[in-house]
């Protein structure tokens, strides 16, 4: 082996000299990369900790157990058990009666009102529903677990300081004493908050639930998916596989890319003008929300679908054409199935985007108080992010935890959608 010649040795030396600097640069680069990832993860952890920390308590609700005597004379004096009579009877009086029996020495109108205020005014509707479902309860005494008022709930969860001066507390001293007696009698306790998942919105925080908004989001996304997926796939297939390459298709392509970047409120305005004012579709309905979000997600899905079609190797098309398939057959039976996983991923990303939108919904009246759970796409409805916004803006303190709980539900919904995307990709994806 001969010694390297002079010029080669020189260049070795130069490389050697620069080596330290280059390694340091590489280490720095890696370090910055790690920092960026760490920072991102750190913020994510802070976000999750604060949301879950604020929100987990909303999944529990303070409940008070009452012995309610269902007096036939006051509920159904005629004894016929006519549902209309039972529907209209004064169940609040029965709840009040049982509260009075628990605290017989409370007198005076103001004190009694304060006493009745411990339980939610939804209690009478609970009792009504229970009796309507089973009229044979009339005349008996039942043990009924009713939701506590939101202020009581906040106190039990420690969001109201028992030691604060009376004037600063929403729970007054006499109420505090009653609550302590209820605690001593083991009549007040915490239970899983089923109402949160079965009720629509309410202005009583202890009755407010996420179901209305969740169903609204589901209906809206259902319409969005049903319209945008077929339209976007058809558009992408035509543009990618069949359309001639000329100025017009270039123009269309540029415009699709531009549309993907248009702020969503613009689509809301368009939806208001076209779907509500021109076609007189109902305001606040998921059908309109779905149509508007379709406009918004279409470009996203088209772009993702075209990318998926582009990634199918030309040999597949050529092979199909070579054995005599027509261009349409080649696309339908060979190219499309292979591009589908990518298209589905793009669709679900578009759907996730649509799920989080509030701005376009404002214009079409979906930012609204809607207590009834929607039963179809034409019923007035709201959506999850809107519900979060509305609760965040409510004065009652109990809505703070409701807001975070709604965010948790929204995040779980998103996570489920993304998991579906990963699953579909894993299942159908093919690599070359």
């Amino acid at each position: 082996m001969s010694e390297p010649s002079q010029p080669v040795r020189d260049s070795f030396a130069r490389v050697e000299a620069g080596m330290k600097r280059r390694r340091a640069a590489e280490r720095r680069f890696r370090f910055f990369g790690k920092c960026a990832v760490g920072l991102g993860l750190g913020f994510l952890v802070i976000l999750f900790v604060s949301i879950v920390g604020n929100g987990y308590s909303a999944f529990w609700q303070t409940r008070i157990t009452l012995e309610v005597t269902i007096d036939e004379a006051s509920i159904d004096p005629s004894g016929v058990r006519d549902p209309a009579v039972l529907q209209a009877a004064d169940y609040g009086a029965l709840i009040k009666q049982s509260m009075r029996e628990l605290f017989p020495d409370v007198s005076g109108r103001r004190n009694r009102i304060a006493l009745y205020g411990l339980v939610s005014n939804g209690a009478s509707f609970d009792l009504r529903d229970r009796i309507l479902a089973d009229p044979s309860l009339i005349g008996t005494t039942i043990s009924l677990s009713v939701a506590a008022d939101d202020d009581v709930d906040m106190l039990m969860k420690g969001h109201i300081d028992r030691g604060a001066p009376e004037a600063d507390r929403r729970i007054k001293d006499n109420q505090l004493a009653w609550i302590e007696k209820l605690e001593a009698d083991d009549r007040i306790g915490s239970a899983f908050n089923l109402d949160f998942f079965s009720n629509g919105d309410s202005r009583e925080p202890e009755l407010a639930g996420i179901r209305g908004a969740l169903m609204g989001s589901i209906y809206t996304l259902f319409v969005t998916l049903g319209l945008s997926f077929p339209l976007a796939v058809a558009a992408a297939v035509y543009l990618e596989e069949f359309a001639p390459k000329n100025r017009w298709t270039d123009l269309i392509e540029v415009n699709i890319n531009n549309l993907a970047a248009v702020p969503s409120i613009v689509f809301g305005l368009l939806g208001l003008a076209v779907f509500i004012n021109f076609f007189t579709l109902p305001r606040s309905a998921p059908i309109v929300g779905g149509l508007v979000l379709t406009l918004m997600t279409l470009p996203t899905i088209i772009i993702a679908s075209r990318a998926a079609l582009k990634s199918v190797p030309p040999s597949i098309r050529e092979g199909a054409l070579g054995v005599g398939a027509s261009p349409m057959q080649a696309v339908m039976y060979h190219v499309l199935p292979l591009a589908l996983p990518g298209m589905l991923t793009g669709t679900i990303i578009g759907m996730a985007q649509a799920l989080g939108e509030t701005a376009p919904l404002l214009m079409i009246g979906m930012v609204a108080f809607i207590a009834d759970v929607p039963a179809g796409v034409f019923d007035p409805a709201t959506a999850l992010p809107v519900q979060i916004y509305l609760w965040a803006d409510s004065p009652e303190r109990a809505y703070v935890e409701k807001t975070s709980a709604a965010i948790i539900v929204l995040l779980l919904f998103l996570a489920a959608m993304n998991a579906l995307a990963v699953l579909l990709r894993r299942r159908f994806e093919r690599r070359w």
Partner: protein
Amino acid sequence: MNKAKFAIAVLSAATLGSAYAQSARDYVSIVGSSTVYPFATVVAERFGKSTPFKTPKIESTGSGGGIKLFCAGVGVEHPDITNASRAIKASELEQCAANGVRDVIEVKIGYDGISVGHAKSAADVDLTRQQLFLALAKQVPDPKGGDALVDNPYQTWKDIDASLPATRIEVLGPPPTSGTRDAFVELVMEKGCSEFPFIKAMKKSDKGAFKNICHTVREDGGYVEAGENDNLIVQKLEANPDAFGIFGFSFLDQNRDKIKGSNIEGVAPEFETIADGSYPVSRPLFFYVKKAHVGVIPGIAEYLAEFTSTKAMGEEGYLSERGLIPLPKDEYAQVVGKAKTLTAMK
């Protein structure tokens, strides 16, 4: 044109699977002010639960936006009721009439106080409207005297009045789109600036300049636009004891363990002081009903009855628990009378 319209209609009908004609609406549709929203929703919910009617739908669009939608016309696609945190303007009524909305029933529901407050941990403060104007206006009369206006030189509250604390002026308040901000500007800033005789004289001679001086809020950081969300303002005040905030009375009422209201002209923001009118910063709240829809959309008259009932709007009604300041007795009786007979505005 008609052909094109028809073609689009057919196309959309095909896309939707079926054409939907909005021929019937079986719930009351309400739009309007975000200040009235928390009260109207409580009534709507109780109404929905205790009557066979569906729960009314209430959109929070802001007073101006609500009136615009309300006045767009008569028919099921237009709302039946709009909430407003101010009285409807004559120009808006004209707009209404131009679109065929002629008979409008006005219902005054009560008062809302606007409080200036700060964290519980800070010392009590007595403010006047003039001091608030000097603290928050963009241009103020020259502190050295004379009738000249200068860019607001005040940096701390003490600069304005020796009785005030020596902390930096920092007031968190709503943005210009908010009705609370409109009311604050009108009830506090304008009153405060009218206490300077030369500015008051301007009101007659040059109304535009007067408005400009009195309504323009400083932009050098003394006034911080904290968003429409009053809860956010409350949280920020708790974290920063030197800052003041401007928010609706119901938020003060719900958070008395965290924040307190400052006295204005020596009067504390309390339920009683707002009700008897001695607290100077309060405004009436309204809703407006489209008379042409009564009897067409089920439940409007009944909703009106529920809202104006003693158990809702009365002195000890459930709305007062939510922070609505009830009307004085004689005014309340008038409102109930008008609601019963569905008397429209003239």
